[in-house]
């Protein structure tokens, strides 16, 4: 699937929804729970089930990236699946640790 910044995707196997913050130039297969994500509102495959080991969950407001930093997505609805590019899991992009400003 060709993505662009602002593209929204939803999981077929859990409640997860994401927004693409940084889109790769090439077509990619963004997955959740190991199963391709689809555009919101499209028919989900009722028989789809999460792949073993791809059920670590997503967090509301968390950012996820791939190892090459080619794609970044933002979770706008959390769920049980693990986000991935194909069968490679995306990793959580931790926020910089900032001290108090008071």
């Amino acid at each position, binding site marked *: 699937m060709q993505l662009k910044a602002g593209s929204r995707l939803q999981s077929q196997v859990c409640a997860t929804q994401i*927004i693409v913050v940084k889109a790769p130039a090439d077509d990619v297969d963004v997955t959740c729970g190991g199963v391709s994500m689809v555009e919101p509102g499209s028919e989900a495959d009722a028989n789809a089930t999460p792949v073993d080991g791809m059920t670590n969950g997503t*967090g*509301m407001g*968390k950012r996820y990236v791939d190892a090459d930093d080619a794609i970044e997505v*933002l979770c706008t609805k959390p769920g049980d699946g693990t986000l991935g590019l194909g069968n490679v899991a995306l990793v959580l992009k931790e926020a910089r640790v900032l*001290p*108090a*400003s*008071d």
Partner: protein
Amino acid sequence: MLTPAAAAQLLQSPFAAEDLGLGPRPHVEIDLRDERANTRVDTGMLAAAIEQIPAVVTGVCDSSTVASELTNACDVLVSERHHDTLPTVAPDDGDAANLEALIGSLTSAVARAPMASVALVQLLRLSHEASIPQALAAESFAYATLQSGPEFRRWLSMQRQSDNPQTPEAGRSVVASQRVDNRLSIVLTDSARHNAFGVAMRDQLVPLLAAAAADPTITHVELRGAGPSFCAGGDLGEFGSAPDPASAHQIRMTRSAASHLHRISNKLTVFVHGAAIGAGVELSCFANALVASEDAIFRLPEVQMGLIPGAGGTVSITRRIGRQRCAWLAISNHAFNSTGALRWNLVDSLATDSLATDYPSSGDESANVQRDGG
């Protein structure tokens, strides 16, 4: 209290700034109750002098006083009774016996924190008509200036002698969120500490607000506090822990709950109960709809700590109640109840039911409840 003519003489004297600004009580009261007195001065020149003076200028009004460049120039307006058109503070707004007592308590409040009081009114003079991002930057500059000042240092030294509640250990969840369809519900869950707004709460709240802004299908965002209070303000245990004022400014401008709330203000409803102090009232005032319970108490303690409201309050509160009432609330440290808050449109409506939120609520798995760890 000075007549307009006496005020013009004082404020236009060559060393007015030094004489007033370095004095023990940089507060000037001008009597605006006699329209004929205004004809004896050049009101344009007096208004320009007010704008320059490093002191708090209070205009004393009555029902005969009409809006003018003089009333606009004053930092605070007071009147014996509620005024129909001018944003004055009346004695009963401040639980004062009469006008003299109200003015006297304001003068005392300025004298306790002269640098912070004057910095606040100077900030409001320049920021109240600026865009919200510009006004937030200006607020942060002024806050940074005061962070290294003697009044805040004195407050800190007194604090260290008292017992502060411990800040939450790193990684503890202090914010929960729930996304159902097009609605995002956010609950501050550090109820034992009255949802003190510290680093952990900032860092857990900001990503939720960013996601709400990014996703156009989130059309309603609700923000509540669990436990006895919505939010009792900044984390007292963290005050004085910023690395330095310049870094603190950089942090405020890069991870700002205020600017994230501003971005979603048109879809944001905040429900306030119990204490809404400091950041608690400042942040909630960004909402398009602000609902308060009858027990809600609003207070801005920062000026009396030698600071100014620094969580966006000089921007959000000013745009609800005007800069003159905002200046009085912040300088006086007055605990404003929900009736007063509604009368001034600080809040939009009062809730008939208790807004105290129990959390965690009964587990509804389909509802997708999530507690956000650090």
